[in-house]
């Protein structure tokens, strides 16, 4: 196990003639929350599928703590994952789903899981088919955080959460970072990214545009003169600037 949580080298994925991801070089370290930004179709989910070994790269490679991403038995000892669109087995209750995921995952901290169930106000006795989008997401979040895996890969994990739960989510992310876990957070919620991320990567049309801390990004854009004078740029303004759209 090396000290780098995620490393990609020239990671590339083509779907037929479509280039979904082109030559991505990335490094995520333990103890950091890494924001992964980009418009729809920029290649964020493709990157995550490649990191999870659920899709095979056309070229390049990805490693998770030194293990090849395709070597699922090893690489997945170190990670937990929350998909963007959480799909659960409709006939299993929330409690049964958590039990299954704990049995098949890299291990679980039952005490922390119980605490998270309480904090996310999860009703575990209903079958998953009756769960709303937000509730399904909460089940996946609790399962992932409770593993205490050294790497958390979160794909738009809070899109279905209400503001109260969103706050719990941010707290859990911060706790994970403070424990030395790495968090890879793909998100469209720029205020969330701004609040919790140490570094962000910005992706467009399958290519990496920038990797920097939020402060560096601000600095970069102020000197480039794109922001209104005398005010700190928001991440949203910076983000829109990358895609050539004026901020509102």
């Amino acid at each position, binding site marked *: 196990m090396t000290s780098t949580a995620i490393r990609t080298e020239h990671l590339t994925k083509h779907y037929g003639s479509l280039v979904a991801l082109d030559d991505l070089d990335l490094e995520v370290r333990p103890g950091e929350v890494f924001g992964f930004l980009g418009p729809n179709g920029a290649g964020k989910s493709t990157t995550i599928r490649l990191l*999870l070994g659920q*899709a095979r790269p056309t070229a390049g490679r990805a490693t998770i703590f030194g293990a090849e991403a395709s070597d699922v038995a090893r690489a997945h000892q170190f990670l937990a994952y929350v998909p963007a669109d959480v*799909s659960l087995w*409709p006939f299993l*209750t929330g409690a049964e789903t958590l039990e299954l995921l704990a*049995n098949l995952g*890299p291990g679980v901290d039952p005490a922390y899981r119980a605490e998270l169930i309480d904090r996310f106000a999860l009703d575990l006795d209903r079958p998953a088919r009756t769960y709303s989008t937000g509730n399904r997401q909460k089940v996946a979040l609790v399962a992932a955080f409770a593993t205490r895996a050294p790497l958390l890969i979160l794909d738009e994990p809070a899109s279905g959460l209400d503001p109260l739960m969103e706050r719990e989510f941010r707290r859990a992310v911060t706790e994970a970072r403070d424990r030395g876990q790495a968090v890879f957070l793909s998100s469209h919620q720029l205020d969330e990214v701004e609040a919790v991320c140490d570094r962000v990567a910005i992706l467009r049309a399958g290519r990496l545009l920038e990797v920097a801390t939020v402060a560096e990004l601000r600095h970069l854009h102020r000197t480039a003169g794109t922001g209104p004078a005398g005010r700190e740029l928001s991440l949203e303004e910076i983000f829109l600037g990358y895609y050539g759209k004026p901020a509102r």
Partner: protein
Amino acid sequence: MNGAIVRLTLRQVRRSAIVVVVVTGGMTALVAGTYRSVVTGPPERAQLAAIAGNRAIRTLFGTPSGLGDPGGFTVWRTGTVLALILGGWGVLVMTRISRGEEQSGRWDLLLSGRTTVSGVLGRQVAVLLTVMAAVWVVVAAGLLTAGVRGAALHATGLALVGAAGVATAAGTAQLFASRAAATGVAAGLLGVGLLLRMVADGFAGLAWLRWLTPLGLVELSEPFGPGRWLPLLTLAVADATLIVLAGRAARGRDVRGARLGGPGRRRPSYALLGSPAAFALRRARLPIVAWSLGMGAFYLLIGLVAGSVTDLLRDNPRLAELAEQGGATGLGTPAGYAATLFVLLTMPAGGFVASRLAAFIGDEVAGRHALACAGPVPRWRWLGAEMLAAGTGALVLALVAAVALWAGGSRLGPAAALAGAANVLPVVALSLGAAVLAVGVAPRAVALLGAIPTIGGFLLVTLGEAVRMPGRLLTLSPYTHLAPVPARSPDLPAAAVMIAFAVLACTAGTVAYRRRDLGG
């Protein structure tokens, strides 16, 4: 908007609809067209009549009527099989395009327009009934030379059984929130219909039961005998009533809701959640129990009437002679009869394994594997677990069939019954192999490819025997290489070849599955 739903439905069903129409029309025309070359003279005709009229055979194929002419022979030979194919297709397709789509959430979007649940359902039923009308045309055309009235009656009967499948499934799709439950209950009702018809044909005092089941009503119409429209009218009224009731049930219910079984809280059950294999068994256990009940009832019934085959031989020494020299009429002894019946076991067992692998792909398409495959469990283990559960289910079905046939009093020892059931398992393994191969290389066609060795192979030999197909073509079917166990000793080399093919296909499918991208 209305046209759009009809067009969408057509797109969803056209491929399998074409297969069903071609198979029903093709089998009917071929069997009818080659009758004269198969049944050449009075001795063959007498032999056929003796066999078809026997109680045990009657239970299986239905009471023959007008066997002496091409039409009656075709109805007897193909009627039950085609009726089951049509009814089964009606059930599977109806629940797939209605409850399946609704469960997946795609109806949320569809019904945000001006259309209602009952509106969509009505159009879907209309499209499927149109397919049944096409079946009517091809079946009637295939039998036209055998007699216009009989052709019309038989075609109407088959189309109405297909419509009964559609109507029943349209109803269960309103009652249950999950596609699996809707399909299972509708298919179970179809199975009960078959069993009732079998009981009616096997036990003289219970002949009236025919009036309660689609297959029985079709039999009562006797297309190439006296020819009666009243039973078919009864079936048509029953179909229409079911469709109206389904429409009523669809009206006013919630989208994604169902008439039975609400949200309901329950206590957790943590059994069989510890490993991929355990979880695959957990998901398969209910289907295994349901299929076992059906199989058990079928073989118990067959066992109860099997004794009459021996009586037939005692009463008809000439037939016994023919049976012994020919070998083609293996039905003539209890062991031969049992062997023939165990061959039928391959179809539900093959269908079962194909449906398990299809459910596996269903989970992948629904995105459930994204979460499952995020754990440190390699993908091949998930597929292996599913193969294990499917194989276990097939073994259970074979065991249940053997025990039921023996318990029914088929004058067969338990060891002979077990050997007969075990003998057909290599064919089921081929279905498993085909389905696993499809998981790796053609995930959208798992059910279809998985059904080819068993159901496709069976149709090929049935047709081949009926029309005297060239031998080379028949060797393609695994059934050609199946020895009639327990009447004869098993063909072990053939079984080994089949198992080798199955292992090869499973391995290739697993390798391809490991290498391909995960869908969903």
